[in-house]
C-alpha cells in the first residue's frame, strides 16, 4: 500500500520530495490560519495567542516532511537515491526562488519592527515568508522537473 502511494514511476526521488514539502507546508500553514484567524476576529492582535499554534504547526510540518521523505525512500527501493547534476541544478534553481521570499519576509519584519508593530505581526510576517518560501521552492522544482530548467 505504502509503496503504491509513494512509488510513482518515472518521478525522480527529489521531485517526490518537492511534492511532499509543497503539500506539507501548504497544509501546515492552512491549519495555522484556521486556528489563528478566528481568534484575530475576536481580539486585538496584541492579545491573540498565536505562538503555540505557530510552533506546533511548524514542528509537525518539519517532522512530517522528514517522515515522508524516509517513507518514499524506503517505498522505492529501485530508486538508488542518486543525486546527479540535473538534481543539483534544479535544487539551486528552486532554492534561488524560495530564498527570495525569505528576504522579502526579513525586509517586511524589519519594517514592522521599525514601525514598532506588535510582535504578532512581525512573527506572522516571518512565518508567512517561510511558508511561501517552502511552497514556491517546491513548485519551482516540480515545474523544472516537468518542463525543464528555464534559461535566461
Amino acid at each position, binding site marked *: 500500500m505504502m509503496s503504491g502511494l509513494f512509488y510513482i514511476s518515472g518521478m525522480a526521488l527529489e521531485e517526490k520530495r518537492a511534492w511532499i514539502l509543497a503539500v506539507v507546508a501548504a497544509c501546515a500553514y492552512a491549519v495555522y490560519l484556521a486556528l489563528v484567524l478566528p481568534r484575530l476576529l475576536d481580539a486585538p492582535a496584541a492579545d491573540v495567542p498565536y505562538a503555540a499554534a505557530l510552533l506546533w504547526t511548524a514542528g509537525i510540518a518539519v517532522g512530517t516532511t522528514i517522515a515522508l521523505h524516509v517513507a518514499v525512500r524506503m517505498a522505492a527501493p529501485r530508486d538508488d537515491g*542518486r543525486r546527479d*547534476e540535473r538534481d543539483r541544478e534544479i535544487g539551486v534553481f528552486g532554492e534561488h526562488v524560495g530564498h527570495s521570499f525569505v528576504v522579502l519576509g526579513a525586509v517586511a519584519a524589519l519594517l514592522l519592527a521599525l514601525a514598532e508593530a506588535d510582535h504578532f505581526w512581525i512573527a506572522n510576517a516571518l512565518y508567512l515568508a517561510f511558508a511561501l518560501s517552502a511552497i514556491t521552492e517546491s513548485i519551482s522544482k516540480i515545474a523544472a522537473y*516537468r518542463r525543464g530548467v528555464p534559461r535566461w
Partner: protein
Amino acid sequence: MRPTRVTNSIRELRFARGRMTQAELADRVGVTRQTIIAIEQGRYSPSLEMAFQIAHALGATLDEVFQYPQDEGDPP
C-alpha cells in the same frame, strides 16, 4: 517553453547498440534514469562533461549524439 535547442539521437543510438535501456545508459553515465529521459525528450541540456560521457557510453562521437540547429546567417 522548450528549455533547450539542443536535439539528440540518444534513443536511436540506444536501439542501434543492442537496445540498451535508459537504465543501463544511466548506470554507465552515473546519473538517474529520469535525467536520461529528460535529455532524450529535450527537457534538459546536459553539461559538456555529461554529454561526452553519454557519447562514450553509446560508442559515438559528440556530433553523432547531440545536434544544435544553426540559424541562417551563422558561420558554418
